């Protein structure tokens, strides 16, 4: 912008050139049309009636000044200067005829049109910015309530998936070897060995359950421990090593070492019972 809004055309003629008449801030201009528009406004007349000759002179003088001040001017400004100098010469010369292209009149009209158009858009821009703006003059809901999304799965599977799944299952099952799951059992021999060890310590009637209790490691073992122990006890009784006693059906079973026949007990030590495997 030009400081002091100086009508510099007049001033420049009077002032010495060593003394800068203008403070030129070419950065402030949005291009040569902007500069021309500013100069035209200083003529304070309707853009349609401005003297293009005078306007061209002002522009060229301005550019001269700027160059004297060694200001870097963008190419756009210089192109416009050249064009205006040409326009000026065409306007000053009587129509020589034979010159190709648009007439000087047309060129002047085109420039005036462009200036008017730029000014019109400037005006439109101002009016646009005068409008109330969202977030400044009017506001949207500060705390909108989000729409909750209910996600419903849509299941997908293909017929091929279905058929391969069916065929494979049936086939695997049909071709599988029959295998019994291995079950953890307490063999009679193990039961007997354990009981014989326990009987050595127990002289009084004891509950069979109590002997077993230390073997009830996990519930799955309960039936096999119980069955094998009971069978072993019966065997020990038959051999005369132990005595058992139960005073009514389903009551706890008591057992103790048989006191009298040491020899028989001795015989039985180390004997291995038949290995029965619970199925």
């Amino acid at each position: 912008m030009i400081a002091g809004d100086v009508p510099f055309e007049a001033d420049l003629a009077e002032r010495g050139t060593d003394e800068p008449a203008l403070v030129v801030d070419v950065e402030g201009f949005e291009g040569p049309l902007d500069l021309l528009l500013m100069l035209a406004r200083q003529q304070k007349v309707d853009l349609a009636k401005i003297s293009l000759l005078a306007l061209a002179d002002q522009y060229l003088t301005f550019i001269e000044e700027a160059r004297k001040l060694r200001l870097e001017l963008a190419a756009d400004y210089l192109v416009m200067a050249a064009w205006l100098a040409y326009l000026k010469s065409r306007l000053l010369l009587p129509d020589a005829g034979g010159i190709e292209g648009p007439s000087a009149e047309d060129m002047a009209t085109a420039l005036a049109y462009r200036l008017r158009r730029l000014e019109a858009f400037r005006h439109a821009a101002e009016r646009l910015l005068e409008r109330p703006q969202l977030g400044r003059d009017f506001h949207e809901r500060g705390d909108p309530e989000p729409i909750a999304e209910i996600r419903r799965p849509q299941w997908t599977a293909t017929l091929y998936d279905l058929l391969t799944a069916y065929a494979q299952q049936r086939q695997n099952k049909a071709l599988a070897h029959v295998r019994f799951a291995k079950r953890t059992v307490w063999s009679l021999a193990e039961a007997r060995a354990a009981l014989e060890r326990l009987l050595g310590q127990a002289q009084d009637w004891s509950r069979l359950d109590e002997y077993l209790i230390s073997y009830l490691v996990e519930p799955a073992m309960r039936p096999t421990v119980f069955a094998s122990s009971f069978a072993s006890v019966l065997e020990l009784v038959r051999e005369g090593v132990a005595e058992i006693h139960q005073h009514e059906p389903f009551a706890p079973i008591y057992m103790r070492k048989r006191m009298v026949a040491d020899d028989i007990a001795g015989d039985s030590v180390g004997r291995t019972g038949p290995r029965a495997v619970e199925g």
Partner: protein
Amino acid sequence: MPSVAKRRLVIAADEVESMSETRPEELRLVEALLFASAEPLDEKTLAARLPQGVDVKTVLQQLQAEYAPRGVNLVRVAGKWAFRTASDLSWLLTKDSVVPRKLSRAAIETLAIVAYHQPVTRAEVEEIRGISAAKGTLDVLLETGWVRPRGRRKAPGRPVTYGTTEAFLSHFGLEALDDLPGLDELKGSGLLDGRLPPGFSVPTPSDDPALRDDEDPLEPEDLDLGLAPPPSRAEK
């Protein structure tokens, strides 16, 4: 309907006119402040932003009364004020969206057994699959709408029998259930290989909704609850 709506519009316009004459400016101010605010405002904050002398409490009461019958209400939240959607309209603010999901391997396998062997109980599915099925697998299949409980087997425990639905047919592009390939077709397509033991058979599936001789109808409560056999019956 349009004429009724038009009449209503006229009524509303009249109301508006009469309201704009009597409605004090403070209401507009508080309305705008609460609408634009990102969080509920307390009375002190409101008073500080309003011209001096505005009786905030009264204005708020009036606004609350005005908005009470509307789709948006003025509510107190922890001693502060905010506009909120009327609570009876919360259904409006939900949106269904559909997310495609692939069925798990176990679910597809179970589905295949149900399709071929229906009506079939869970225990029977497990027997055919040779795996004890997770309860969740059948639940997923019920959720797909491809499998339905159809009755109860006349057997100890009265287990529920399952079958496929029309949605099953339409999803898999089957016109009828017997379009499912039989033994020869499964062999022919290479899905079953030739090394099958003698006597191996694939049933001819049927989704005839009529109950079989060994099926009882479901009781109404089966459809609401988790489909567990009613305890009283199960004990018999």
